[in-house]
């Protein structure tokens, strides 16, 4: 009766796309109520094709949820924690046994830092300055782990970078002006 025993079946929809291992946050997603992507950051490897699929699946899963329901959804053996700010959804994907409430607060921490940086942040700020949002996120999370929980420290670092960049820009433009002048 059992010679087929060894033929072990594998589920076609394998959840092991990425190692379950250590990474705390697998990705960060921001999308609007219309499902438009505003920011994506992938800490675990996903191919471009998978990314599109993930975004589609998750926006389909999260957008219809009512405001009173849990801010967590189970998805492919992971958990996705989301939080809505006005028309923008912030999502983070974590492992099954992580602390969802903590992730909710990490999202909020990110939003607070954004808020401080942009001065009462709105969706448009993120749309037009998504690269800035990336810089901020990079100071907050690194490789899927929370690296800094002090808003002040993050803000200070970003400000330092910005001022340096601005300084460099001025210098650059003045140099190029000189060159332009010289070559006239």
């Amino acid at each position, binding site marked *: *009766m*059992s*010679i*087929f*025993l*060894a*033929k*072990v*079946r594998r*589920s076609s*929809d394998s959840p092991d796309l990425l190692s379950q*291992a*250590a990474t705390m946050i697998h990705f960060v997603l921001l999308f609007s109520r219309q499902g438009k*992507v505003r920011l*994506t950051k992938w800490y675990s*490897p996903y191919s*471009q094709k998978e990314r*599109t699929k993930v975004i589609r699946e998750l926006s389909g899963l999260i957008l219809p949820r009512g405001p*009173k*329901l*849990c*801010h*967590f*959804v189970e998805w492919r053996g992971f958990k996705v924690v989301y939080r809505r700010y006005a028309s923008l959804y912030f999502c983070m994907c974590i492992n099954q046994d992580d*602390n*969802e*409430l*903590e992730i*909710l*607060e*990490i999202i909020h921490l990110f939003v607070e830092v954004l808020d401080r940086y942009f001065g009462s942040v*709105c969706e*448009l*700020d993120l*749309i*037009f*300055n*998504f*690269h*800035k949002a990336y*810089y901020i996120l*990079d100071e907050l999370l*690194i*490789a899927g*782990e*929370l*690296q*800094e*929980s*002090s*808003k*002040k*420290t993050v803000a200070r*670092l970003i400000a330092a*970078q910005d001022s*340096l*960049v601005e300084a*460099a*820009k001025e210098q*650059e433009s003045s140099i190029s002006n000189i060159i332009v002048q010289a070559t006239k």
Partner: protein
Amino acid sequence: MGSQGGFGQSKEFLDLVKSIGEARSKAEEDRIVLHEIETLKRRIAEPDIPKRKMKEYIIRLVYVEMLGHDASFGYIHAVKMTHDDSLSLKRTGYLAVTLFLNEDHDLIILIVNTIQKDLKSDNYLVVCAALNAVCRLINEETIPAVLPQVVELLGHAKEAVRKKAVMALHRFYQRSPSSVSHLVSHFRKRLCDNDPGVMGATLCPLSDLITIDSSSYKDLVISFVSILKQVAERRLPKSYDYHQMPAPFIQIKLLKILALLGSGDKQASEQMYTVVGDIMRKCDSTSNIGNAVLYECICCVSSILPNPKLLEAAADAISKFLKSDSHNLKYMGIDALGRLIKISPDIAEQHQLAVIDCLEDPDDTLKRKTFELLYKMTKPSNVEVIVDRMIDYMVNINDNHYKTEIASRCVELAEQFAPSNQWFIQTMNKVFEHAGDLVNIKVAHNLMRLIAEGFGEDDDTADSQLRSSAVESYLRIIGEPKLPSAFLQVICWVLGEYGTADGKYSASYITGKLCDVAESHSSDDTVKAYAVAALMKIYAFEIAAGRKVDLLPECQSLIEELSASHSTDLQQRAYELQAVISLDARAVESIMPLDASCEDIEIDKSLSFLNSFVQQSLEKGAQPYIPENERSGVLDVASLRSQDHHEASTHSLRFEAYELPKPVIPSRAPPVSVSHSTELVPVPEPSYPREVRQTASVSPFSETGPSELKLRLDGVQKKWGKPTYSSPAPSTSSSSSQRTVNGVTHSDSTGNPNSKTRNTSHDSKRSQVEISPEKQKLAASLFGGSSKPEKRPSSTGHKVPKTSTNSGAKSHMEKGVVSASEISIEKTTPLQPPPDLLDLGEPSITNIAPFVDPFKQLEGLLDPSQDASAVDHGAISSSKSSDFMSLYADMPTSGENSTVANPLSSNLESFGSAHGGSTVVYPTQTSKGPNLRDALEKDALVRQMGVTPSTQNPNLFRDLLG
């Protein structure tokens, strides 16, 4: 919005973003993006692009890629940009490459050099940018290239750099643990860093290291505890406060680490009790972050060695979570409960109603979490309810991932706790029917073995009963379309072995069915193989029994078709079948003995029965046999193979070379020259009874994962619910907790649950009344064990409210019932005094007499009226009365039921509560209420269970699975 202009993007880019923002469909968006890609491709290839322009292009590339399109044509430009001296450009370059490239991308090798250079930069911001890139891009191969520099940066003057260096090393550790294993001392040192940010970051790698091996970090317990204490005492800079909590994220990380270190370690656990207790006390349970810390405390408490005080605090916190209105907190409460019940199984009892609320919540996430909890608390007394619930849920979901999970959980629970084999088979049928393609094939094999081995003892009648019932249920199911392959295999096998065993079905009937299966699943070779093997068995049994065998025409054509099949396996089977039926009864009987699937096959490895033949041949001048390893000129491979005691002679074909795609049993059977036939025919199927039996003997259990078969002994005997009447203390607590639960549901509409302000409270009260009995019932079956209700005093509980946990709870419920019905009575038939209702239950002990299942009969009738009554009570009372009259007419069997005598005819609720009273009669019932239909269904089920001897022979079943 004001800031968007000032960052140097061109109008072009702003327009792009805008037009995408205004795109009305995904297709339109895609069109715009594709156009943008074309533009960028052209522009970026132009010579002499100003750097600032290039920077913008790169950002536009990032944007395109973020929207899900391929921007790989520009990756190289992003890489180039990292080489730039200007920080502004470098930062953009690094941002782009970290977003574009995965760690195994080919271009990374071009960046490593830049990173190395930048790590040495004087400007700490450049170093930070490089370290960010290191965390993302450096893979196992390139770690050595940057490792020394990163380690050096651990001592950098700027805390931001130290912090990132720690995170980078953490990343290296995740990529390749061995690369940084010698650096553990650095992590320990960084734990004492002056900067809390660096210290917090160091907790990440330490937590990973401790997860792997907690024993070598026990000395750090004291440090962690003291750090946690300082954090909790607000010794960290104010800037780490978050929503009035001192550095909560660091607290959470520390608690996670402590949980790991304290697990199973008495000394370590004792060191942390105080601080964990302090934190739990200090947690602000009104804020989300406070609850996050609180939850982490519960996790820690349930992981370290139990401490009664902490457990109590944890239980309190859990009940706060569960009673909260927030779904998030309920979810966390359910999760925490699942953790804590491992240690103190009793605590779930007081939350039973909350748990059931969550189970029935429309929120899928919460529901699934609750199923997880139920899975953890399953025991023999509640397995039926839980698994039934799970299957019901499973049937209705489309998410394959979760379906697989819940199906395997059903199987696992059924195997562990099944009260009877009958139930087990029925449950497995359901699982297979609805999720057959998702469950592991092993499950099918387990099921076959269960049916084959039966109870495993001498109880032959029970065995054959089991088999006949299996055969019967399969014959019923077999015609259904779209049965999963694994299930069909089981069906075919069982029909082949036992289809004709009890003589109920004729061979031609069974074979006809089997042919149908093979025909309708013509694309599935495995099923066909099983079907043919089953056919062969049926025919063989017929021949052995001396009956004449007539091949059905469809069978004949099937065999012909298979004889020409592309699958050699199927061909082989078809030919074997033909060969077997042409043999005489005696031969057939010895090849295919009846019901021999479990018997051992003795293998004569030395082939002693051939000795005389060998002797003869030798005498005739044949060459004597030389063992393979003594032969010269044999290939190395052959001698290697000889280690496997394969003694295939070199003169014959080497069958091993052609390993079958399916791992096949014969590798276990020593393939000796004579038994080549077995090898030749790697028929992976019972058509070869010898092989089959051999499998059984070689490894009766090897194929089943230990997790599936292992009896989980711990916790099995522990009852959640305390015996109802034993101690008054828990009863009061539980009833009071239930009261508060009910109170919560009430509080929405009315402050006072039993107030007589009927106009406003009427509806809400009734809806509650309609739900709660079912929940009570469920609670009792989930939490209470089945024996409880029997002890219930035979009165309508509310007169003696606190006799027991169960009746305490119930009395409250019934109070609700009564008050609700009271109201309705007053509304519809004001003359009827309520006390009559209460009397209903008491005299009905006499009712035990003939009982022909009136509930079942009533079910259909009740349905419509019940729905209607939920909508509006007053308006439809007339239609209801007619329904009730028909009920009334149908009632004679329970004629003595006092309802009949009660003239409350137009009131359905009163009818319900009358039943509530009278149910006391039936020992297995727990509670009844106005929700008649559900109650009746449950009731029918319960009584059915009562009839089916669920405790028939539990030991036997355990033997089987153990």
